[in-house]
């Protein structure tokens, strides 16, 4: 029974999550594009040259946050950079991507980026639980942060548990093992993940993937959508 549930999470649910993610985002963007344009400028002044570049800088460097909440900004940058690296690190597991040297047993960032993301999420959570930010927070805000926190923690646990066997010359579940699992998903061959991921902490991998699936499925319907909307919004502000 448990093996069936693990299979459902590690294979069909991954496809479902990816489909919800893509269809959800496309639907959301299409809904916006189908709406009539506002018709007049929404910019603020003073006007500056190279407004497109400035909108880009606003999106990726968040100067407004740096100016008004510098400590929060440090954690925001840490979180977003580390999250980006984590995405790249996971993509690197797919055979043939090759961001890390082929003979390296480590994921991109060597576990440090996971720790960085976890620390940033903990800061976000603590910040949200006090002062005026607490008063503007909703249940959904906490649930999202908890989802991210447990996603990062289980990812960290997998990384850490894998290193237990390092003294004996190898990882419990190696990059190649994860690569085989991802390649299987890409081939849609519905192979049993248990045969590809041999470690005793397999259950943690299952939980991690389950949480990742949830993350992908709620992505288009929650504020995480700002990933896609931050740039057009900053363009509106810059004019």
């Amino acid at each position, binding site marked *: 029974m448990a093996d069936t549930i693990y299979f459902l999470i590690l294979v069909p649910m991954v496809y479902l999550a990816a489909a919800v993610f893509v269809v959800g985002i496309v639907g959301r963007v299409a809904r*916006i594009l189908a*709406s*009539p344009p506002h018709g007049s400028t*929404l910019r*603020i002044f003073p006007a500056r040259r190279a407004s497109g570049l400035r909108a880009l800088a606003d999106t990726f460097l968040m100067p407004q946050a740096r100016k008004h909440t510098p400590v929060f900004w440090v954690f925001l940058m840490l979180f977003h950079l580390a999250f980006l690296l984590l995405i790249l690190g996971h993509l690197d597991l797919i055979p043939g991507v090759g961001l890390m040297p082929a003979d390296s047993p480590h994921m991109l960032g060597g576990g440090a980026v996971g720790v960085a993301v976890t620390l940033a999420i903990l800061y976000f959570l603590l910040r949200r639980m006090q002062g005026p930010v607490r008063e503007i927070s909703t249940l959904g805000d906490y649930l999202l942060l908890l989802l991210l926190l447990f996603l990062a923690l289980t990812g960290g646990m997998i990384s850490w548990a894998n290193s237990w066997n390092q003294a004996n010359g190898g990882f419990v579940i190696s990059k190649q093992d994860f690569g085989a699992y991802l390649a299987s998903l890409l081939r849609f061959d519905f192979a049993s993940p248990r045969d590809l991921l041999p470690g005793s902490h397999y259950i943690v991998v299952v939980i991690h993937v389950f949480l990742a699936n949830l993350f992908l499925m709620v992505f288009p319907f929650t504020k995480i*959508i700002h990933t896609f909307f931050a740039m057009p919004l900053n363009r509106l502000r810059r004019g």
Partner: protein
Amino acid sequence: MEAALQEKLKGLMASKLSREMRLYLDTCARCGICIEACHAYASMPETRYTAVARAETIRRLFRRYFKAEGRLLPGLGETIELDDAALEKVHETAYTCTGCRRCMTYCPFGIDTQMIQGIAKLLLIGADREPKLLTMLADMSIAKGETIRDTKGAFEQAVRNLEAEVIEKWRGEAGREAIPVGVKGADVLYVALAGKHSIIPAAAIMNAAGEKWSLSYFEAVNFGAFVGNPEKTREISRRIIDEATELGVREVAICECGTAYRVMKHQTGRHPFEVISFVDLMERYLRDGRIRVDRAKLDGSRVTYHDPCQMARNGGVIEEPRRVLRELAGDFVEMRPNRGENWCCGGGGGLVAMGEKDFRMKSARVKAEQVRATGATVLATACENCHTQLSDLNEHYGMGVRVAFLSQLVADALVQA
């Protein structure tokens, strides 16, 4: 609330869901960076006065009726029903926000709270709960446009009665009208407010510059924008656009009224004429040497300038008033922050017209402190609303300044050739 009214309000809300509005409503991360941006919150630290809390009321209605997740999972606490209690909340958020858009300079996404409050104001109109005074004033402006043929004579007579006061400030050429009206082919159509303080200094300045100008039959202020009624806003603007087109003027100069300027400059589309602010015009006259001013008039005065939100941050008239003031005053000091980040005076969004003095005074404490910190004795500004609000603050907080329109300072300092 009756089902029919609820449906009507949902329809009104839908009418505001432009591409940009959907982006604004979809994106807030509730990060709280905007919390400190609002002058009302800085003066009275209550969560309801934050940009995020104000917008959240509208977002919750949006999610409830226009988002699948809000319909499916209302229990997550991020939706509210459109009922009487919600409308009370909507009223509070709409009419404690001055629409200054200072929060846009804090938000990492640049979310426009004023635009979101446009939904709130429209819902209140639909529910017949908007401030009736604002609607009445908007209707009066529109009626004036409809009856202009009948009232032209009376208007022209009232203007003639002001000419002696213009001549006191500037002796024009003999035989030339001090306040010309209905001049075909004028270079500038000046759109004033309904009050001689908005006409006399401007007339003296334009006469001193030898401008070929004409006074508009209509007042500049747009109460349709204050009450958040898009149709009335358009109708009020249209009177002036039609007049300018009919006269064939080159430029329309909007008096010192921030909302009037922003609406006409940035929200009415393209025209066969340019829209400028009267501050632009004064700066141009000084730069081109068409008028000269006597700096001695402000000797011994320390002058500071309050950037009206709709003129500066939302209109782009930022350096021009400073250049004018540097010509006028030897001791000009900036308040901090200034320009696009200046604190709102607390009088915008229709609050001055509505009265609301208790809230206006309490919510603008931070403005009074900002002015006091400059040590200025003269507080110049270029907006009618700001002037009224700053004058009230001056009295309430004992700021000890003389609040003056920029045009008034220039007109008082004109040097007769």
